[in-house]
């Protein structure tokens, strides 16, 4: 019996120390004892909730990868999208393979990628004198439908690389310079939401965008990860990477 009482006393003492005494002693304690107890349990008082402090103009994108966003981005109808896509075909090709080097291929790009870029053009987070007016009047559903339309076409053929080993920057990055490997987000090592596949993309387009990330002219990457990487790369490295991934003439 004594043993049980002793064990119960230890448990009660633990609760008092862990949920009352230690929380009350904390430097960052706001409010009274009751607030401290709530924090220890895991209930934050509403004022204590951490909120994003960035002003809207500074946030790099309006897209948040919540379940609701994903549901919307994946809800597109390719049929409806094809009706809207007539205006796109002039630059990006009727089947998402563009005729000129300056405009990117869209065929086979994951819907999440297309959804985010279109949303970013519409909100002005990604600057383009051509794309901003074209997207200004699109609804969320229009954007999802367009994404579904271009995503459904077969992706461009991957350039032939017979015998060539991928550059180290692609496969292992450069840890000393805090550069993550391209393949970790853009595939095939890993696939991150919103990161487009790169193989077979237009070489000139890739170079332009990498340079734009490096200068900050393009700044719609959610956590600044592309700007970080592009800034750390030399101009010739950016050129070589665009060449490795890009469509060969």
């Amino acid at each position, binding site marked *: 019996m004594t043993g049980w009482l002793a064990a119960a006393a230890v448990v009660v003492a633990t609760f008092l120390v862990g*949920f009352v005494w*230690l929380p009350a002693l904390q430097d960052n304690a706001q409010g009274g004892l009751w607030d401290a107890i709530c924090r220890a349990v895991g209930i934050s008082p509403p004022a204590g909730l951490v909120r994003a402090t960035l002003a809207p103009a500074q946030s790099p994108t309006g897209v948040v990868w919540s379940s609701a966003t994903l*549901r919307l981005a994946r809800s597109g109808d390719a049929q409806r999208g094809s009706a809207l896509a007539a205006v796109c075909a002039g630059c990006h090709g009727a089947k998402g393979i563009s005729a000129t080097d300056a405009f990117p291929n869209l065929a086979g790009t994951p819907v999440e990628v297309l959804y985010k870029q279109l949303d970013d053009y519409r909100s002005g987070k990604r600057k383009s004198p051509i794309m901003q007016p074209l997207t200004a009047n699109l609804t969320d559903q229009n954007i999802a439908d367009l994404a579904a339309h271009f995503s459904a076409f077969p992706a461009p053929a991957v350039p032939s690389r017979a015998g060539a080993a991928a550059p180290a920057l692609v496969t292992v990055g450069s840890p000393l310079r805090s550069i993550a490997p391209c393949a970790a987000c853009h595939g095939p090592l890993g696939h991150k939401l919103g990161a487009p596949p790169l193989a077979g993309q237009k070489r000139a387009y890739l170079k332009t965008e990498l340079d734009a990330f490096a200068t900050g002219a393009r700044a719609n990457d959610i956590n600044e990860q592309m700007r970080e990487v592009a800034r750390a790369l030399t101009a010739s490295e950016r050129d070589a990477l665009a060449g490795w991934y890009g469509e060969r003439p």
Partner: protein
Amino acid sequence: MPGSSRLVLAHFWLAFAAFAGSIVLGAWQMWVRSPLHPWLTDAELYYRSVTAHGTTLAYVFPTLIAMGFGYAVCASALDRPLRGERLAWAGFALVLAGAAMSLLAVAGGNSSVLYTFYPPLTASPFYYLGIVLVVVGSWFWAGLMIYNMRIWKREHPGERVPLAVFGTVANALLWVWTSVGAALEILFLILPAALGWTSGVDAGLSRTLFSWTLHAIVYFWLLPAYVAFYALVPRAAGGRLYSDRMARVVFVLFLVLAMPIGIHHLFADPHIGEGFKFLHTVFTAGVVIPTLLTVFTLTASLEIAGRLRGGQGLLGWIAALPWDRPIVLATGLSLVMLGLGGAGGLINMSYTLNSTIHNTQWVTGHFHLIFGGAVVIMYFAIAYELWPHLTGHPLRSARLACWQLWLWFVGMLVVTLPWHAVGLMGQPRRMAYYDWSDPALAAQGHLVSASAVGGFILLVSAVLLIVILLRSQGGPRVQVDALTYARALDDGSPLPRALNGLAVWAGLMIALTVVNYGYPIAQSFFLQHNKVPAQSVLRAP
């Protein structure tokens, strides 16, 4: 032993076959991420290998050993054939099918999420379904252990349940309850996302549920070794168990304390209130009690044996012990590793000290030393001890077996001590490669190379194990005595009723789980911050 030999052998052979394959992968992993090998250009290969290594050695290998040893204990200690052997074979078939399904999914490259799952990563559904099958198969075993003890007690009223059976059933109860956490996580959170039915995973709740399983599973792996410590080692050393009652207290304390402590794996997780982290720290500290009781009882039992064999003086009894018997040697080596690993464990479980080593290679070193070292070396010893009784052939060359155990011990220290050191230097774990040209990492390079050598020592030891078991089974057949268990000094004295059954203790285990996990789990139903998009690791999404 009465019947069941084929059943037990099937479990042990499948376990050791899976084990040997995983050790090859382990050695390869250590080599490729050390400075001895150029960087892997496809890091996914590394994670694929780690996933196969962890899945096999955490879910398949120890589960099969616990099952096989449990059946052997049940048949031999109760001295009658196992009841429900057909169900036992069905459980074995499920484990085999599940392991094959999971490992094929991993081999295909679509399941490189590591064995701890790491949601919101999602893998091929077959990977998770395979693990569910393994767990369900092991539940057949747990049910049979509980059932066999119950009917034996009913037919032998007033008699004491043999200690080995008591410990095994305690482990079965612990396993059934502890596996519920990961089962819920897989069935309700990860699988729906992997199948595409939901787009998001509540990462916080997943981690909480996994921690429910994650720490107690370690004691599920450990308890077969403890059954061997208490029930086999004192007899093999030529002495008596110091106290049967103390042994039972240890088993029930593990049953009660293994569960309500898992949140010490979540010290860095923001969704758990700091009060619960403190609570779990205190309960984790409680595990010190059964651990030190075991160190005391085991040492006392060995001292009895040493003195019976003519050992004199304060420490002379140690030298008098029969160190040429594999299970005695394994026990000595296991205690050294348990001591070192236990000391490291005290740092892991301390809320504040943990931040120094959280997610570093130290943690990998810790669990390899405790499980791969202290526990697995006892699995080898159990196999050596059981082999003649299972096969009817004597163990060929106890000398070679002792070599094998020594190699495992040395290899494990060479692997894990450098890992502890580089962990303190800040080396993160779960990395496919490190930039050894970075001057900041240069000091760690030599240690990592040394530990890779340890990996190959372990590989040699694993090959030796298989050779010894195979050679023994192919040897001449002899008359083998029945497997017997250690007698205790207090066998004649009365046993409190509470120490001859486990119902009260299982009830306490569930009650403490509710107290310590109730709110952290319940909060996810009204706090919705934790849901994040699922990230598939399928190679071609």
